[in-house]
Protein backbone atom coordinates (compact mmCIF):
# COMPACT_ATOMS: atom_id res chain seq x y z
CA UNK A 1 0.00 0.00 0.00
CA UNK A 2 2.92 2.36 -0.62
CA UNK A 3 2.06 5.80 -1.93
CA UNK A 4 -1.23 5.81 -0.03
CA UNK A 5 -1.39 8.39 2.73
CA UNK A 6 -1.78 7.03 6.26
CA UNK A 7 -5.25 7.15 7.80
CA UNK A 8 -3.97 9.29 10.64
CA UNK A 9 -0.83 11.37 10.74
CA UNK A 10 0.32 13.59 13.58
CA UNK A 11 2.97 16.22 12.90
CA UNK A 12 4.89 18.15 15.56
CA UNK A 13 2.00 18.19 18.03
CA UNK A 14 2.58 20.23 21.21
CA UNK A 15 0.29 21.09 24.07
CA UNK A 16 0.83 22.85 27.39
CA UNK A 17 -1.45 23.29 30.36
CA UNK A 18 -0.22 26.52 31.89
CA UNK A 19 3.54 26.25 32.22
CA UNK A 20 3.45 22.45 32.13
CA UNK A 21 4.29 21.06 28.71
CA UNK A 22 2.22 17.90 28.31
CA UNK A 23 3.07 17.10 24.71
CA UNK A 24 6.34 18.03 23.10
CA UNK A 25 6.40 17.87 19.31
CA UNK A 26 4.83 14.45 18.81
CA UNK A 27 5.00 12.72 15.41
CA UNK A 28 2.87 9.66 14.75
CA UNK A 29 1.41 7.67 11.88
CA UNK A 30 -1.46 5.20 11.98
CA UNK A 31 -2.13 3.09 8.89
CA UNK A 32 -5.56 1.76 8.01
CA UNK A 33 -6.26 -1.43 9.98
CA UNK A 34 -3.49 -0.82 12.49
CA UNK A 35 -3.87 -1.27 16.21
CA UNK A 36 -1.63 1.18 18.04
CA UNK A 37 -1.25 0.95 21.78
CA UNK A 38 0.09 3.88 23.77
CA UNK A 39 1.53 3.04 27.17
CA UNK A 40 3.44 5.01 29.74
CA UNK A 41 3.31 6.28 33.30
CA UNK A 42 0.44 8.54 34.34
CA UNK A 43 1.07 12.15 33.48
CA UNK A 44 3.15 11.15 30.46
CA UNK A 45 0.70 12.87 28.10
CA UNK A 46 -0.81 9.76 26.48
CA UNK A 47 -4.44 10.68 27.20
CA UNK A 48 -3.86 14.26 26.11
CA UNK A 49 -2.35 13.00 22.86
CA UNK A 50 -5.44 10.87 22.26
CA UNK A 51 -7.77 13.78 23.05
CA UNK A 52 -5.85 16.03 20.66
CA UNK A 53 -6.49 13.55 17.83
CA UNK A 54 -10.20 14.41 17.77
CA UNK A 55 -9.72 17.95 19.07
CA UNK A 56 -11.35 17.41 22.46
CA UNK A 57 -8.18 19.22 23.43
CA UNK A 58 -6.98 21.89 21.04
CA UNK A 59 -3.22 21.52 20.50
CA UNK A 60 -1.05 24.61 20.88
CA UNK A 61 0.86 23.78 17.72
CA UNK A 62 1.20 20.95 15.28
CA UNK A 63 -1.41 19.30 13.09
CA UNK A 64 -3.39 16.07 13.05
CA UNK A 65 -4.27 14.82 9.57
CA UNK A 66 -7.14 12.41 9.07
CA UNK A 67 -7.12 10.94 5.57
CA UNK A 68 -4.84 13.83 4.61
CA UNK A 69 -7.27 16.50 5.85
CA UNK A 70 -6.13 18.65 8.78
CA UNK A 71 -8.38 18.09 11.80
CA UNK A 72 -10.09 21.20 13.14
CA UNK A 73 -8.48 23.43 10.52
CA UNK A 74 -9.60 24.46 7.08
CA UNK A 75 -7.91 26.21 4.16
CA UNK A 76 -9.75 28.99 2.46
CA UNK A 77 -7.49 30.24 -0.28
CA UNK A 78 -4.13 30.70 1.39
CA UNK A 79 -5.62 31.45 4.80
CA UNK A 80 -5.96 28.81 7.48
CA UNK A 81 -9.11 28.98 9.60
CA UNK A 82 -10.12 27.19 12.79
CA UNK A 83 -13.22 25.07 12.32
CA UNK A 84 -16.37 25.85 14.25
CA UNK A 85 -17.63 23.19 16.64
CA UNK A 86 -20.28 22.09 14.16
CA UNK A 87 -17.78 21.78 11.28
CA UNK A 88 -15.57 19.75 13.59
CA UNK A 89 -18.55 17.53 14.38
CA UNK A 90 -18.50 16.28 10.76
CA UNK A 91 -14.84 15.22 11.11
CA UNK A 92 -15.44 13.67 14.50
CA UNK A 93 -17.99 11.29 13.00
CA UNK A 94 -15.00 9.47 11.45
CA UNK A 95 -13.28 9.05 14.84
CA UNK A 96 -15.17 7.19 17.52
CA UNK A 97 -14.00 7.43 21.09
CA UNK A 98 -14.38 5.14 24.09
CA UNK A 99 -13.78 6.75 27.47
CA UNK A 100 -12.41 5.48 30.75
CA UNK A 101 -15.67 6.56 32.44
CA UNK A 102 -17.97 5.10 29.71
CA UNK A 103 -20.10 8.30 29.56
CA UNK A 104 -23.22 6.52 28.37
CA UNK A 105 -26.28 8.76 28.29
CA UNK A 106 -27.97 7.83 31.58
CA UNK A 107 -31.48 8.84 30.46
CA UNK A 108 -31.41 6.44 27.53
CA UNK A 109 -31.43 2.66 27.37
CA UNK A 110 -28.52 0.73 25.88
CA UNK A 111 -30.35 0.55 22.55
CA UNK A 112 -31.28 4.25 22.64
CA UNK A 113 -27.67 5.14 23.40
CA UNK A 114 -26.57 3.31 20.28
CA UNK A 115 -29.22 4.65 17.89
CA UNK A 116 -28.97 8.25 19.16
CA UNK A 117 -26.18 9.46 16.86
CA UNK A 118 -27.37 7.56 13.74
CA UNK A 119 -30.86 9.04 14.23
CA UNK A 120 -29.83 12.59 15.05
CA UNK A 121 -26.57 13.03 13.15
CA UNK A 122 -27.05 10.76 10.15
CA UNK A 123 -30.84 11.16 10.11
CA UNK A 124 -31.16 7.42 9.61
CA UNK A 125 -34.62 5.85 9.61
CA UNK A 126 -35.48 4.52 13.06
CA UNK A 127 -36.16 0.97 11.85
CA UNK A 128 -32.78 0.76 10.17
CA UNK A 129 -30.97 2.33 13.13
CA UNK A 130 -32.54 -0.17 15.53
CA UNK A 131 -31.72 -3.09 13.23
CA UNK A 132 -28.09 -2.00 12.99
CA UNK A 133 -27.91 -1.38 16.73
CA UNK A 134 -29.17 -4.90 17.44
CA UNK A 135 -26.40 -6.31 15.24
CA UNK A 136 -23.87 -4.26 17.25
CA UNK A 137 -25.37 -5.38 20.56
CA UNK A 138 -25.03 -8.97 19.43
CA UNK A 139 -21.43 -8.31 18.49
CA UNK A 140 -20.67 -7.07 22.03
CA UNK A 141 -22.77 -9.86 23.55
CA UNK A 142 -25.53 -7.73 25.07
CA UNK A 143 -28.62 -8.49 23.00
CA UNK A 144 -30.56 -9.28 26.18
CA UNK A 145 -29.62 -5.93 27.73
CA UNK A 146 -30.96 -3.72 24.90
CA UNK A 147 -33.68 -2.14 27.04
CA UNK A 148 -31.64 -1.71 30.22
CA UNK A 149 -30.58 1.71 31.45
CA UNK A 150 -26.85 2.27 32.02
CA UNK A 151 -27.29 2.25 35.82
CA UNK A 152 -28.73 -1.27 35.54
CA UNK A 153 -25.60 -2.54 33.79
CA UNK A 154 -22.24 -3.52 35.22
CA UNK A 155 -19.16 -1.48 34.32
CA UNK A 156 -18.03 -4.03 31.75
CA UNK A 157 -21.47 -4.09 30.15
CA UNK A 158 -21.60 -0.30 30.05
CA UNK A 159 -18.24 -0.14 28.35
CA UNK A 160 -19.35 -2.69 25.77
CA UNK A 161 -22.46 -0.60 25.06
CA UNK A 162 -20.16 2.45 24.73
CA UNK A 163 -18.08 0.57 22.15
CA UNK A 164 -21.24 -0.39 20.25
CA UNK A 165 -22.39 3.25 20.40
CA UNK A 166 -19.14 4.40 18.79
CA UNK A 167 -19.33 1.69 16.14
CA UNK A 168 -22.85 2.76 15.18
CA UNK A 169 -21.42 5.82 13.43
CA UNK A 170 -19.19 3.50 11.34
CA UNK A 171 -16.00 5.42 12.19
CA UNK A 172 -12.77 5.00 10.26
CA UNK A 173 -10.88 4.95 13.52
CA UNK A 174 -11.65 4.15 17.15
CA UNK A 175 -9.85 5.91 19.99
CA UNK A 176 -9.78 4.15 23.38
CA UNK A 177 -8.85 6.20 26.44
CA UNK A 178 -7.95 3.67 29.16
CA UNK A 179 -11.12 1.68 28.43
CA UNK A 180 -10.59 -0.85 31.22
CA UNK A 181 -9.10 1.33 33.96
CA UNK A 182 -12.43 1.93 35.71
CA UNK A 183 -13.47 -1.73 35.67
CA UNK A 184 -13.38 -4.59 38.17
CA UNK A 185 -10.55 -7.01 37.39
CA UNK A 186 -13.10 -9.69 36.51
CA UNK A 187 -14.95 -7.57 33.92
CA UNK A 188 -11.80 -6.24 32.22
CA UNK A 189 -11.63 -9.46 30.20
CA UNK A 190 -15.05 -9.09 28.57
CA UNK A 191 -14.17 -5.61 27.26
CA UNK A 192 -10.75 -6.72 26.03
CA UNK A 193 -12.39 -9.67 24.24
CA UNK A 194 -14.61 -7.27 22.29
CA UNK A 195 -11.59 -5.10 21.47
CA UNK A 196 -9.59 -8.12 20.27
CA UNK A 197 -12.50 -9.09 18.06
CA UNK A 198 -12.62 -5.59 16.56
CA UNK A 199 -8.89 -5.72 15.90
CA UNK A 200 -9.28 -9.04 14.11
CA UNK A 201 -12.01 -7.54 11.94
CA UNK A 202 -9.51 -4.92 10.80
CA UNK A 203 -10.74 -1.92 12.79
CA UNK A 204 -8.14 0.82 13.08
CA UNK A 205 -7.64 1.50 16.75
CA UNK A 206 -5.52 3.78 18.91
CA UNK A 207 -5.59 2.48 22.47
CA UNK A 208 -4.22 4.19 25.56
CA UNK A 209 -3.94 1.34 28.05
CA UNK A 210 -2.20 -0.22 30.99
CA UNK A 211 -3.08 -3.74 29.81
CA UNK A 212 0.33 -4.98 28.71
CA UNK A 213 -0.84 -8.42 27.67
CA UNK A 214 -3.45 -6.85 25.37
CA UNK A 215 -0.77 -4.57 23.92
CA UNK A 216 1.58 -7.50 23.42
CA UNK A 217 -0.98 -9.76 21.76
CA UNK A 218 -3.12 -7.37 19.75
CA UNK A 219 -1.14 -4.25 18.90
CA UNK A 220 0.72 -3.82 15.65
CA UNK A 221 2.59 -0.87 17.13
CA UNK A 222 3.47 -0.05 20.68
CA UNK A 223 4.31 3.47 21.71
CA UNK A 224 5.94 4.22 25.02
CA UNK A 225 5.46 7.81 26.17
CA UNK A 226 7.05 9.66 29.03
CA UNK A 227 7.34 13.34 29.80
CA UNK A 228 5.34 14.40 26.74
CA UNK A 229 7.53 12.66 24.18
CA UNK A 230 7.51 9.30 22.45
CA UNK A 231 10.44 7.58 24.10
CA UNK A 232 10.28 4.34 22.20
CA UNK A 233 8.06 2.87 19.51
CA UNK A 234 7.98 -0.32 17.55
CA UNK A 235 6.66 -3.85 17.43
CA UNK A 236 5.14 -4.63 20.84
CA UNK A 237 7.03 -7.86 21.45
CA UNK A 238 10.33 -6.13 20.72
CA UNK A 239 9.61 -3.06 22.82
CA UNK A 240 8.27 -5.09 25.73
CA UNK A 241 10.98 -7.73 25.85
CA UNK A 242 13.99 -5.76 24.62
CA UNK A 243 13.44 -2.12 25.53
CA UNK A 244 16.40 0.00 24.51
CA UNK A 245 15.68 3.12 26.51
CA UNK A 246 16.37 3.32 30.24
CA UNK A 247 12.98 4.94 30.97
CA UNK A 248 11.13 2.18 29.14
CA UNK A 249 13.09 -0.42 31.07
CA UNK A 250 12.30 1.27 34.39
CA UNK A 251 8.59 1.54 33.54
CA UNK A 252 8.27 -2.07 32.39
CA UNK A 253 10.18 -3.31 35.42
CA UNK A 254 7.62 -1.59 37.62
CA UNK A 255 4.47 -2.88 35.97
CA UNK A 256 5.33 -6.28 34.58
Amino acid at each position, binding site marked *: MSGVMPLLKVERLSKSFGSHQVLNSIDLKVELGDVTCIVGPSGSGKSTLLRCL*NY*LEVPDSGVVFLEGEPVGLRWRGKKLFRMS*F*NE*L*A*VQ*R*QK*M*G*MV*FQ*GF*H*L*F*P*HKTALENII*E*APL*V*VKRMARMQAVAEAMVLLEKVGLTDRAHY*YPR*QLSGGQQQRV*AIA*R*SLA*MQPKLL*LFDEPTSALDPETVGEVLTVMRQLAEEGMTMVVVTHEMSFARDVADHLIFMDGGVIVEAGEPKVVLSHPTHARTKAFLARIL
Partner: protein
Amino acid sequence: MEDEKSTPQECPDIHATRPVPVMHPSWWIGGAALILFVLAFIRLLVTNENLQWGVVAAYLFSPEILAGLGRTLYLTFLAMIFGLVIGTVLAIMRLSRNPVFQVASWAWIWFFRGVPPLVQLVFWYNLALLIPTVSVGIPFGSDLWSADTNRLITPLSAALLGLSLTESAYAAEMIRAGIQAINIGQTEAAATLGMTRGQTLRRIVLPQALRIVIPPIGNDTISMLKFTSLVSVLALPDLLYSAQMIYSRTYQTIPLLIVATIWYLILATVLTFIEHYVEHRLNSDRPFDLSKILPSLVRSRFWGTGRRGMSV
Protein backbone atom coordinates in the same frame (compact mmCIF):
# COMPACT_ATOMS: atom_id res chain seq x y z
CA MET B 1 -26.25 -2.75 90.16
CA GLU B 2 -24.69 -6.00 91.19
CA ASP B 3 -27.66 -8.17 90.33
CA GLU B 4 -27.92 -6.62 86.81
CA LYS B 5 -24.44 -7.83 86.06
CA SER B 6 -25.48 -11.43 86.02
CA THR B 7 -22.98 -13.90 84.69
CA PRO B 8 -23.60 -15.38 81.23
CA GLN B 9 -24.45 -18.77 82.77
CA GLU B 10 -27.54 -17.40 84.54
CA CYS B 11 -28.92 -15.68 81.39
CA PRO B 12 -31.14 -17.40 78.88
CA ASP B 13 -29.66 -18.22 75.48
CA ILE B 14 -28.80 -14.92 73.71
CA HIS B 15 -29.96 -16.31 70.38
CA ALA B 16 -33.38 -17.15 71.82
CA THR B 17 -33.87 -13.77 73.51
CA ARG B 18 -35.36 -10.75 71.75
CA PRO B 19 -33.57 -7.50 72.70
CA VAL B 20 -35.61 -4.65 74.17
CA PRO B 21 -35.78 -1.79 71.60
CA VAL B 22 -33.94 1.46 72.34
CA MET B 23 -36.16 3.85 74.31
CA HIS B 24 -36.40 7.43 73.13
CA PRO B 25 -37.71 9.50 76.08
CA SER B 26 -37.17 12.72 74.09
CA TRP B 27 -39.59 11.45 71.41
CA TRP B 28 -42.27 10.97 74.04
CA ILE B 29 -41.74 14.32 75.80
CA GLY B 30 -41.44 16.32 72.59
CA GLY B 31 -44.30 14.44 70.97
CA ALA B 32 -46.59 15.02 73.94
CA ALA B 33 -45.81 18.76 73.98
CA LEU B 34 -46.55 19.06 70.27
CA ILE B 35 -49.78 17.11 70.55
CA LEU B 36 -50.90 19.52 73.29
CA PHE B 37 -50.29 22.48 70.96
CA VAL B 38 -52.18 20.77 68.16
CA LEU B 39 -55.14 20.07 70.45
CA ALA B 40 -55.18 23.71 71.59
CA PHE B 41 -55.17 24.85 67.96
CA ILE B 42 -57.99 22.49 67.00
CA ARG B 43 -59.97 23.74 69.99
CA LEU B 44 -59.49 27.32 68.72
CA LEU B 45 -60.71 26.33 65.25
CA VAL B 46 -63.79 24.61 66.64
CA THR B 47 -64.84 26.93 69.44
CA ASN B 48 -63.99 30.40 68.11
CA GLU B 49 -67.30 31.91 66.95
CA ASN B 50 -65.56 34.55 64.79
CA LEU B 51 -64.47 31.91 62.30
CA GLN B 52 -68.13 31.39 61.26
CA TRP B 53 -67.69 27.98 59.64
CA GLY B 54 -71.20 28.26 58.23
CA VAL B 55 -70.18 31.28 56.14
CA VAL B 56 -67.01 29.48 55.07
CA ALA B 57 -69.06 26.53 53.86
CA ALA B 58 -71.52 28.81 52.07
CA TYR B 59 -68.81 30.60 50.07
CA LEU B 60 -66.34 27.72 49.53
CA PHE B 61 -67.98 26.74 46.25
CA SER B 62 -69.59 30.04 45.32
CA PRO B 63 -69.25 30.87 41.59
CA GLU B 64 -67.33 34.06 42.34
CA ILE B 65 -64.71 32.20 44.41
CA LEU B 66 -64.45 29.39 41.85
CA ALA B 67 -63.95 31.91 39.03
CA GLY B 68 -61.18 33.53 41.09
CA LEU B 69 -59.68 30.10 41.70
CA GLY B 70 -59.61 29.47 37.95
CA ARG B 71 -57.83 32.79 37.32
CA THR B 72 -55.28 32.01 40.05
CA LEU B 73 -54.59 28.65 38.44
CA TYR B 74 -54.11 29.89 34.90
CA LEU B 75 -52.03 32.84 36.06
CA THR B 76 -49.80 30.38 37.94
CA PHE B 77 -49.36 28.09 34.95
CA LEU B 78 -48.95 30.77 32.28
CA ALA B 79 -46.43 32.67 34.45
CA MET B 80 -44.51 29.41 35.10
CA ILE B 81 -44.46 28.41 31.43
CA PHE B 82 -43.32 31.84 30.21
CA GLY B 83 -40.87 32.05 33.10
CA LEU B 84 -39.36 28.63 32.33
CA VAL B 85 -39.07 29.29 28.58
CA ILE B 86 -37.37 32.66 29.13
CA GLY B 87 -35.32 31.14 31.97
CA THR B 88 -34.01 28.33 29.73
CA VAL B 89 -32.90 30.86 27.10
CA LEU B 90 -31.26 32.97 29.83
CA ALA B 91 -29.47 29.93 31.27
CA ILE B 92 -28.12 28.97 27.85
CA MET B 93 -27.02 32.58 27.27
CA ARG B 94 -25.35 32.64 30.69
CA LEU B 95 -23.34 29.51 29.80
CA SER B 96 -22.54 30.74 26.30
CA ARG B 97 -18.97 31.78 25.54
CA ASN B 98 -20.20 35.01 24.00
CA PRO B 99 -19.45 37.71 26.63
CA VAL B 100 -22.35 39.91 25.44
CA PHE B 101 -24.82 37.05 26.00
CA GLN B 102 -23.30 36.34 29.41
CA VAL B 103 -23.50 39.92 30.61
CA ALA B 104 -27.00 40.49 29.21
CA SER B 105 -28.26 37.34 30.94
CA TRP B 106 -26.49 38.28 34.18
CA ALA B 107 -28.01 41.81 34.10
CA TRP B 108 -31.52 40.45 33.43
CA ILE B 109 -31.28 38.01 36.33
CA TRP B 110 -29.79 40.70 38.58
CA PHE B 111 -32.65 43.09 37.80
CA PHE B 112 -35.64 40.76 37.91
CA ARG B 113 -34.44 38.87 40.95
CA GLY B 114 -33.69 42.09 42.76
CA VAL B 115 -36.95 43.99 42.17
CA PRO B 116 -39.84 42.76 44.34
CA PRO B 117 -42.67 41.26 42.24
CA LEU B 118 -45.19 43.66 43.81
CA VAL B 119 -43.16 46.67 42.64
CA GLN B 120 -42.94 45.12 39.18
CA LEU B 121 -46.67 44.53 38.97
CA VAL B 122 -47.43 48.17 39.74
CA PHE B 123 -44.68 49.29 37.42
CA TRP B 124 -45.86 47.23 34.44
CA TYR B 125 -49.43 48.33 35.05
CA ASN B 126 -48.30 51.95 34.81
CA LEU B 127 -46.02 51.37 31.81
CA ALA B 128 -48.03 53.84 29.72
CA LEU B 129 -46.68 56.67 31.89
CA LEU B 130 -43.17 55.73 30.71
CA ILE B 131 -43.80 54.55 27.16
CA PRO B 132 -47.09 55.90 25.79
CA THR B 133 -47.05 53.91 22.53
CA VAL B 134 -45.45 50.62 21.59
CA SER B 135 -44.42 50.23 17.97
CA VAL B 136 -42.69 47.61 15.86
CA GLY B 137 -40.80 48.83 12.84
CA ILE B 138 -37.48 49.49 11.19
CA PRO B 139 -35.17 51.22 13.69
CA PHE B 140 -35.02 54.95 12.90
CA GLY B 141 -37.41 54.20 10.03
CA SER B 142 -41.12 53.79 9.57
CA ASP B 143 -43.40 51.90 11.92
CA LEU B 144 -44.94 48.66 10.73
CA TRP B 145 -47.27 48.33 13.68
CA SER B 146 -47.97 50.44 16.68
CA ALA B 147 -50.40 50.46 19.57
CA ASP B 148 -51.35 52.52 22.53
CA THR B 149 -49.60 51.07 25.62
CA ASN B 150 -52.76 51.60 27.67
CA ARG B 151 -54.58 49.17 25.37
CA LEU B 152 -51.84 46.52 25.59
CA ILE B 153 -51.39 46.67 29.35
CA THR B 154 -54.42 45.16 30.99
CA PRO B 155 -54.36 43.89 34.58
CA LEU B 156 -53.83 40.42 33.13
CA SER B 157 -50.90 41.29 30.85
CA ALA B 158 -49.28 43.39 33.58
CA ALA B 159 -49.68 40.51 36.02
CA LEU B 160 -48.23 38.00 33.53
CA LEU B 161 -45.29 40.28 32.74
CA GLY B 162 -44.44 40.89 36.40
CA LEU B 163 -44.81 37.29 37.51
CA SER B 164 -43.18 35.54 34.55
CA LEU B 165 -40.22 37.92 34.37
CA THR B 166 -39.55 37.40 38.08
CA GLU B 167 -39.86 33.66 37.59
CA SER B 168 -37.56 33.75 34.54
CA ALA B 169 -34.71 35.07 36.70
CA TYR B 170 -35.13 32.31 39.28
CA ALA B 171 -35.69 29.62 36.63
CA ALA B 172 -32.55 30.74 34.79
CA GLU B 173 -30.40 30.17 37.86
CA MET B 174 -31.98 26.77 38.57
CA ILE B 175 -31.59 25.59 34.98
CA ARG B 176 -28.02 26.89 34.80
CA ALA B 177 -27.17 24.92 37.94
CA GLY B 178 -28.92 21.87 36.45
CA ILE B 179 -26.95 22.12 33.21
CA GLN B 180 -23.67 22.62 35.06
CA ALA B 181 -24.37 19.53 37.15
CA ILE B 182 -24.16 17.39 33.99
CA ASN B 183 -20.79 15.64 33.71
CA ILE B 184 -18.53 17.13 31.04
CA GLY B 185 -18.08 13.55 29.80
CA GLN B 186 -21.65 13.66 28.46
CA THR B 187 -20.93 16.56 26.13
CA GLU B 188 -17.59 15.00 25.14
CA ALA B 189 -19.26 11.69 24.35
CA ALA B 190 -21.85 13.51 22.23
CA ALA B 191 -19.07 15.48 20.49
CA THR B 192 -17.15 12.32 19.58
CA LEU B 193 -20.33 10.92 18.03
CA GLY B 194 -20.41 13.93 15.73
CA MET B 195 -23.31 15.71 17.39
CA THR B 196 -23.51 19.48 17.00
CA ARG B 197 -23.79 21.82 19.98
CA GLY B 198 -27.52 22.28 19.45
CA GLN B 199 -28.13 18.53 19.19
CA THR B 200 -26.05 17.91 22.32
CA LEU B 201 -27.96 20.53 24.26
CA ARG B 202 -31.42 19.40 23.13
CA ARG B 203 -30.93 15.64 23.18
CA ILE B 204 -28.35 15.02 25.90
CA VAL B 205 -27.88 17.93 28.30
CA LEU B 206 -31.32 19.48 28.73
CA PRO B 207 -33.23 16.20 29.30
CA GLN B 208 -30.79 15.33 32.08
CA ALA B 209 -30.73 18.85 33.53
CA LEU B 210 -34.54 18.84 33.58
CA ARG B 211 -34.56 15.83 35.89
CA ILE B 212 -32.32 17.69 38.29
CA VAL B 213 -34.39 20.87 38.29
CA ILE B 214 -37.82 19.20 38.63
CA PRO B 215 -37.88 19.50 42.45
CA PRO B 216 -36.95 23.21 42.49
CA ILE B 217 -39.38 23.88 39.63
CA GLY B 218 -42.13 22.20 41.66
CA ASN B 219 -41.16 24.37 44.60
CA ASP B 220 -41.27 27.49 42.43
CA THR B 221 -44.69 26.54 41.09
CA ILE B 222 -46.02 26.47 44.63
CA SER B 223 -44.35 29.82 45.32
CA MET B 224 -45.89 31.18 42.14
CA LEU B 225 -49.32 30.01 43.24
CA LYS B 226 -48.94 32.21 46.28
CA PHE B 227 -47.26 35.11 44.43
CA THR B 228 -50.33 35.36 42.19
CA SER B 229 -52.22 36.73 45.20
CA LEU B 230 -50.18 39.93 44.66
CA VAL B 231 -52.24 40.67 41.54
CA SER B 232 -55.08 41.75 43.81
CA VAL B 233 -53.36 45.19 43.77
CA LEU B 234 -54.18 45.38 40.06
CA ALA B 235 -57.85 44.63 40.82
CA LEU B 236 -57.51 41.37 38.90
CA PRO B 237 -60.13 39.07 40.43
CA ASP B 238 -57.95 36.12 41.39
CA LEU B 239 -58.80 33.89 44.35
CA LEU B 240 -57.74 36.43 46.99
CA TYR B 241 -59.29 39.45 45.25
CA SER B 242 -62.58 37.57 44.75
CA ALA B 243 -62.67 36.87 48.48
CA GLN B 244 -61.80 40.50 49.20
CA MET B 245 -64.61 41.72 46.93
CA ILE B 246 -67.10 39.57 48.81
CA TYR B 247 -66.01 40.61 52.29
CA SER B 248 -65.93 44.28 51.33
CA ARG B 249 -69.69 43.86 50.71
CA THR B 250 -70.54 41.55 53.62
CA TYR B 251 -67.84 42.43 56.21
CA GLN B 252 -67.24 38.70 56.79
CA THR B 253 -63.49 39.21 56.53
CA ILE B 254 -62.16 36.22 58.48
CA PRO B 255 -64.45 33.52 57.02
CA LEU B 256 -63.65 34.61 53.46
CA LEU B 257 -59.92 34.69 54.15
CA ILE B 258 -60.37 31.16 55.50
CA VAL B 259 -62.08 30.21 52.22
CA ALA B 260 -59.11 31.55 50.27
CA THR B 261 -56.68 29.82 52.66
CA ILE B 262 -58.43 26.47 52.23
CA TRP B 263 -58.22 26.71 48.44
CA TYR B 264 -54.56 27.79 48.47
CA LEU B 265 -53.74 24.83 50.73
CA ILE B 266 -55.67 22.41 48.51
CA LEU B 267 -53.88 23.68 45.39
CA ALA B 268 -50.48 23.56 47.09
CA THR B 269 -51.17 19.98 48.19
CA VAL B 270 -52.19 18.95 44.67
CA LEU B 271 -49.08 20.61 43.22
CA THR B 272 -46.86 18.89 45.77
CA PHE B 273 -48.38 15.58 44.81
CA ILE B 274 -47.89 16.24 41.11
CA GLU B 275 -44.26 17.21 41.73
CA HIS B 276 -43.59 13.99 43.65
CA TYR B 277 -45.32 12.00 40.92
CA VAL B 278 -43.22 13.58 38.16
CA GLU B 279 -40.03 13.16 40.17
CA HIS B 280 -40.89 9.52 40.77
CA ARG B 281 -41.61 8.96 37.08
CA LEU B 282 -38.31 10.51 36.01
CA ASN B 283 -36.13 8.79 38.56
CA SER B 284 -37.48 5.30 38.53
CA ASP B 285 -38.19 2.64 35.97
CA ARG B 286 -40.63 0.98 38.32
CA PRO B 287 -44.33 1.49 37.60
CA PHE B 288 -46.20 4.21 39.39
CA ASP B 289 -46.91 3.09 42.94
CA LEU B 290 -49.22 5.26 45.04
CA SER B 291 -48.22 3.54 48.27
CA LYS B 292 -44.62 4.61 47.66
CA ILE B 293 -45.42 8.23 46.76
CA LEU B 294 -47.81 9.00 49.61
CA PRO B 295 -45.27 8.32 52.38
CA SER B 296 -42.62 10.27 50.45
CA LEU B 297 -44.80 13.37 50.78
CA VAL B 298 -44.42 13.54 54.55
CA ARG B 299 -41.44 11.41 55.44
CA SER B 300 -37.83 11.83 54.58
CA ARG B 301 -34.89 9.65 55.40
CA PHE B 302 -31.80 10.92 57.04
CA TRP B 303 -30.87 8.87 60.12
CA GLY B 304 -30.89 5.56 58.26
CA THR B 305 -34.03 3.51 57.76
CA GLY B 306 -34.93 3.55 61.46
CA ARG B 307 -36.79 0.26 61.58
CA ARG B 308 -38.61 -0.46 64.78
CA GLY B 309 -36.33 -1.66 67.53
CA MET B 310 -33.18 -0.55 65.80
CA SER B 311 -31.01 2.15 67.24
CA VAL B 312 -29.68 4.22 64.43
